């Protein structure tokens, strides 16, 4: 597995783009190290803004910069960015339609044993509920880079959440993304829809299921909002079960969105796999995923139970 993290991919992409675009700004809240943005700050000090430990200020200042023509990437831990500065995201970014990409780093349970304050398991629900806010959870470094390049092409607000550690490669540098979702594998019995860290796990779970005679399709729904409902409905046609997997609370995330879509258009059972509505067990992210059944084996077992 590559050791290049998705946050590193964001920095690398911005470093390249900033060579010819002096309006690209990276703003941090004492988070340039954890956001893998140190190199950007060193390379483009005049395009870097340090705000200190003040996430509300980070987002409002970013909006002010954007209102004067800057393309701002506000980079801060997802846990703080999505809650401490939620109102700033609502008012100064979403409502004001400023060209700010809120980059939530070390999302979900990336911080592991640091505990509940550092988990961001509400961010998909929270940010998706803001009018005009787009929400992305890319699954690997290539897709992350592609999303950043896409975001540089327009002036609309977005929230981009990435994990702390490296993610398994699913694509390569030549993969083109355009529709907010990728049908990675077709299947006729069950459809797995995942985002972020859960995509590779679902792909492996599908392989395990195939060995047991269950044909499982997999969709990487890296853009949660707007969700590519068309692709999901097309792939869900004829399957007995739709399964969602996400590193989020059970409320308002990918599972809720897909269940909403399926119930309105092609009613059938939707199994929503997520982290629980409660305190997350202490441990590394991997230990917690294992505990809650969000491994390839756990996902495959849940699918089989739901089908039986």
């Amino acid at each position, binding site marked *: 597995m590559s050791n290049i993290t998705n946050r590193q991919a964001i920095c690398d992409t911005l470093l390249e783009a900033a060579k010819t675009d002096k309006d690209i*700004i990276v703003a941090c809240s004492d988070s340039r190290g954890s956001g893998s943005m140190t190199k950007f700050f060193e390379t483009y000090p*005049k*395009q870097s*803004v340090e*705000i*200190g430990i*003040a996430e*509300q*200020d980070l987002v*409002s*200042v*970013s*909006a*002010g*910069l*954007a*209102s*004067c*023509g*800057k393309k701002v990437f506000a980079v801060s831990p997802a846990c703080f960015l999505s809650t401490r500065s939620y*109102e*700033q995201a609502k*008012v*100064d970014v979403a*409502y*004001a339609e400023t060209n700010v990409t809120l980059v939530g780093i070390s999302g979900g349970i990336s911080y592991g044993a640091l505990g509940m304050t550092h988990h961001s398991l509400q961010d998909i629900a929270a940010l998706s509920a803001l009018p005009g806010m787009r929400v992305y959870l890319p699954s690997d470094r290539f897709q992350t880079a592609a999303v950043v390049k896409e975001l540089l092409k327009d002036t609309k607000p977005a929230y981009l959440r990435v994990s702390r550690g490296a993610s398994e490669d699913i694509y390569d540098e030549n993969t083109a993304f355009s529709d907010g979702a990728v049908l990675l594998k077709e299947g006729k019995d069950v459809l797995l829809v995942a985002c972020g860290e859960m995509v590779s796990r679902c792909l492996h779970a599908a392989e395990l299921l195939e060995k047991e005679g269950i044909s499982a399709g997999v969709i990487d729904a890296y853009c949660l909002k707007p969700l590519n409902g068309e692709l999901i409905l097309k792939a869900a046609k004829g399957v007995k079960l739709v399964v969602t997997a996400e590193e989020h609370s059970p409320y308002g995330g990918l599972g809720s969105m897909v269940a909403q879509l399926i119930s309105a258009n092609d009613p059938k059972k939707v199994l929503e796999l997520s982290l629980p509505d409660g305190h997350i067990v202490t441990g590394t992210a991997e230990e917690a995923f294992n505990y809650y059944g969000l491994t390839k084996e756990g996902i495959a077992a849940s699918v089989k139970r739901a089908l039986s």
Partner: protein
Amino acid sequence: MDELTKKSYKLRRSVIEAVYRASSGHIGGDLSVVDILNVLYNRIMNVSPEKAHDPDRDRFILSKAHCADCLYAVLGDKGYFDINEYLTTFEKFQSRFIGHTNTAIEGVEMNGGSLGHGLAVGVGMALAAKMDGRAYRTYVVLGDGEMAEGSNYEAMMAAAQYSLDNLCATVDLNGLQISGPTKDVMNTAPLGEKFASFGWNVIEVQDGNDCDQLIAAYEQAKACKGKPTAVIAHTVKGKGVSFMENNVKWHHGVMTKEQYETAVKELEARYE
């Protein structure tokens, strides 16, 4: 009475009319802040409807955005839009003149309505000017009650850190907020000392409803280099309408026909 001061009273007259027709509006604060907006828009800032998208225009943010009623009157008077649209549709069904600032209105630079946002957004605008080597200045107007919002102090730190001498904050210090006197609800005083301790240049304006005193303060602010300036403008809430002055009940009030007629008479007497 000089023409600029007369204009302040005419603007008050417009605000009173819009608020009366809407049966809604933050009239007390409108009447305290009107001289500040009048001076900024008509004497200090490099702004006009023709320059609405000029990258070098000065920027203005009404952080106490519930006084949008007053800003609309000032912008309408300056010709950004037909003031009659504001006077007749303010807060009415499907109007674009909602009760808080929004950029759907020509001349409004930033949406507002939640307190404690404007100063930080202004920091971003002033920082962008520095980055781009542009000479425009950014002006933010806050309320003294609003200064209880902690986010203001984050913005104050950042403004000083980046030596934003192109940023000028004004506090419309009228001493009252919706629940009562600011000093009783949550004392935000001493505001001048707070700004100064964060590294700001501070100018106290003893009568923040006096246009000449305000002009002098803003000229002094322009001359200050190396740090942002805070103008602490001591104003009277409800200024210009006898029964509203210093009366907390008029933070947001609905006038009876008789009250409206009395207010109009009092205001018109000042400029006719």
